């Protein structure tokens, strides 16, 4: 059974310095703003953050970056019109950046959750992003060997949870949530509402409760 945390601070308790943190969301959609704020307040440092982007505006992930407590970010698209917080840190050499093709990012997170040790993909073959990586020709096509991204913590946003920890999402807010939930030792979901066990149709569950450790309701 999942833990229903009384507030976001309780929901993120115990996140240690040096943690690798998966953060859901694609831009604003599905970004767990309240949990990111709680992580920022919690003060953990030397973090590695995995997100599709590198924050935008001054809230959420951007505000976390602004504290200087993120040592390294793994993402596919750090450059947005309003990603100035990241850009300033990056140009000042105060944050490490690993850029991965978005599909490799997703597949590497899924691989961690699914117990895959590594996989070959044609994505990125022959490009800068494959430099230094092992390659192999399979079926006449060059493939790159990619490794899973295992994490200590996943912070995601879903729409509804039940008391068994089952989650459903809302529209394109789903994005990385379901795979990130599988890839971390501790998965925390902020949701709009929690319903009793049996309140979600078993056929419609997207993330089964086995992948969810803590849930917190946020507006």
């Amino acid at each position, binding site marked *: *059974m999942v833990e229903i945390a009384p507030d976001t601070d309780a929901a993120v308790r115990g996140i240690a310095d040096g943690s690798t943190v998966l953060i859901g969301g694609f831009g604003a959609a599905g970004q767990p703003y309240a949990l990111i704020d709680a992580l920022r307040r919690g003060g953990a440092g030397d973090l590695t953050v995995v997100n599709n982007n590198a924050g935008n505006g001054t809230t959420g992930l951007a505000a976390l970056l602004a504290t200087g407590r993120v040592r390294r970010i793994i993402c596919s698209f750090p450059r947005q019109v309003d990603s100035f917080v990241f850009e300033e840190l990056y140009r000042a050499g105060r944050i490490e950046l690993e850029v991965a093709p978005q599909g490799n990012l997703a597949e590497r997170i*899924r691989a*961690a*959750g*699914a*117990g*895959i040790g590594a996989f070959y993909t044609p994505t990125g073959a022959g490009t800068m992003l494959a430099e230094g990586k092992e390659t192999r020709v399979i079926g006449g096509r060059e493939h790159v060997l990619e490794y899973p991204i295992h994490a200590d913590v996943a912070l995601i946003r879903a729409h509804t949870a*039940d*008391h*068994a920890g*089952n989650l459903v999402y809302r529209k394109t807010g789903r994005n990385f949530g379901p795979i990130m939930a*599988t890839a971390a030792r501790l998965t925390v979901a902020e949701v709009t509402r929690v319903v009793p*066990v*049996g309140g979600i149709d*078993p*056929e419609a*569950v997207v993330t*089964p*409760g*086995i*992948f969810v450790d803590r849930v917190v309701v946020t507006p």
Partner: protein
Amino acid sequence: MTVEHADRGPLDRDELARLVAGDIPRKSFVNLGIGQPTAVADHFGPDSDVVLHTENGMLGMGPMAHGDDVDPDLVNAGKIPVTELPGAAYFDHALSFAMMRGGHLDVCVLGAFQVAADGTLANWHTGAPDAIPAVGGAMDLAVGAKDVFVMMSLFDRNGTPKLVPECAYPVTGLRCVSRVYTDRAVFHLTGDGVRVTETFGTTLAELRARLDVPLL
């Protein structure tokens, strides 16, 4: 420290299933193998909050279905009709095996032909030349569950021990079993060796004499 129950007979199947159920922590996510391990489900207390996984795509599996409750679309890994508990979830084989292989199940309970002292498991193939091999999800559970418990009789019909120095049967997984529950004793396979926690109708000394495996 071994607790010896020498003044009684070996456990029967029901007692063994109850013993295993009692050792599974509350709120665990558990996969029970087909055959003998299935009976463990009958012995979880009402407050155990154990959630059963079946590899054909379900969490929150309930007891076997009977009569009008039988639904051909709702079966367990042994293709036996089962029921659905509140809070259940259905998913496809990719996600179901991601749960198993990705280390998300707390415990699986499997039967075995043999278990080696280092935890290597043999439970899928007799090795007989005319046997048709059939593995199902056994190798996935063996490598993937956080704890792999084995339930078996300690001796085969000829009195030969099934806890062995090295498996003679084709193996299912290397060094994966953490505990072996048998009618005669419970064995914890630790990094340091095999510890006997309890005996039934026998003694540690007697087991030392009958098994080829050093016991701590």
